[in-house]
């Protein structure tokens, strides 16, 4: 079970809702993924085309927890404004703090992320900051009282997988709250690896939405995350330098 704030979840896969080829594909991908937490962005509506379909409005909201993000914010104040707008919908009290500090790499701005996190915690939000894989920053966020930390595996949408497993394991080891590996996951291998490192969950979007078959990939990610978690809980064998035969050396049949 994954516990964030006062809510518990069976699924350890958090799914983003951007860039799917169609709503039908997206709906089925969400369903087969088993995800219970879906991320959304908050945007000004194109009110002169109100009939355009909206994915959120097609969901059975009793089945999902919404995790709006503050994407688009470059400062703590902008992030807080977006968070308050999202909360005013009455649909959610969680917020993913996402404050981009570099337009090319889309890496988070650590200073603004810390500031926004503090402000949002003071306002009573359930706060999940998206951070880099900086170990000290993650500790600072933990100490502030965040409800989960979400270090990136590699840049958003890059699909490059886990670039710094050592840092991520340090973050996981020291964290007192769930660690959700967010951003950069490209394939089921990456998701399983994150879970084997001991992550509590994985958040991904592009790896599913840009897959050749997003529905099949959604299932693949679900299974990879379950397998990785089971492997972590089971405790893997130690590595050694030389081979050790699996078959007994006694009772050899000689012809």
């Amino acid at each position: 079970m994954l516990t964030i704030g006062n809510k518990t979840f069976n699924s350890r896969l958090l799914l983003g809702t951007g860039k799917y080829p169609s709503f039908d594909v997206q709906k089925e991908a969400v369903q087969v993924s088993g995800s219970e937490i879906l991320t959304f962005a908050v945007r000004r509506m194109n009110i002169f085309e109100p009939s355009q379909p909206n994915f959120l409005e097609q969901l059975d909201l009793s089945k999902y927890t919404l995790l709006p993000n503050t994407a688009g914010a470059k400062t703590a104040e902008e992030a807080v404004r977006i968070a308050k707008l999202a909360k005013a919908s009455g649909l959610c009290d969680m917020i993913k703090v996402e404050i981009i500090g570099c337009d090319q790499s889309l890496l988070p701005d650590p200073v603004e992320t810390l500031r926004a996190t503090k402000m949002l915690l003071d306002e009573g939000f359930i706060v999940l900051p998206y951070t880099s894989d900086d170990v000290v920053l993650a500790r600072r966020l933990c100490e502030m009282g965040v409800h989960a930390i979400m270090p990136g595996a590699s840049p958003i949408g890059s699909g490059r997988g886990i670039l710094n497993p050592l840092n991520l394991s340090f973050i996981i080891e020291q964290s007192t709250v769930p660690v959700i590996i967010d951003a950069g996951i490209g394939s089921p291998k990456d998701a399983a690896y994150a879970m084997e490192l001991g992550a509590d969950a994985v958040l991904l979007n592009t790896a599913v939405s840009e897959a050749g078959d997003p529905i099949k990939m959604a299932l693949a990610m679900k299974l990879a995350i379950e397998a990785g978690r089971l492997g972590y809980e089971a405790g893997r064998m130690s590595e050694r330098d030389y081979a050790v035969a699996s078959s007994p050396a006694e009772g050899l049949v000689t012809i």
Partner: protein
Amino acid sequence: MKRTIELNGNRYDMPAEVGNVQELLGHLELAERIVIVEMNRDILAKDAYDLPINDRDQIEIIHFVGGG
């Protein structure tokens, strides 16, 4: 009296029959949609949708879109 507001960043001439926020949402066919309304940078609670809209008010209608 003619009222011109700023609606989602655009100039918008208020139809005479629209008096408050709820009526504006109805006029824009958004009454049943999941939206959040900001008026002059203040977020409006649903029970404040009966606030009258005045000339030069700034209104933002926000919603959730796909994102990661």
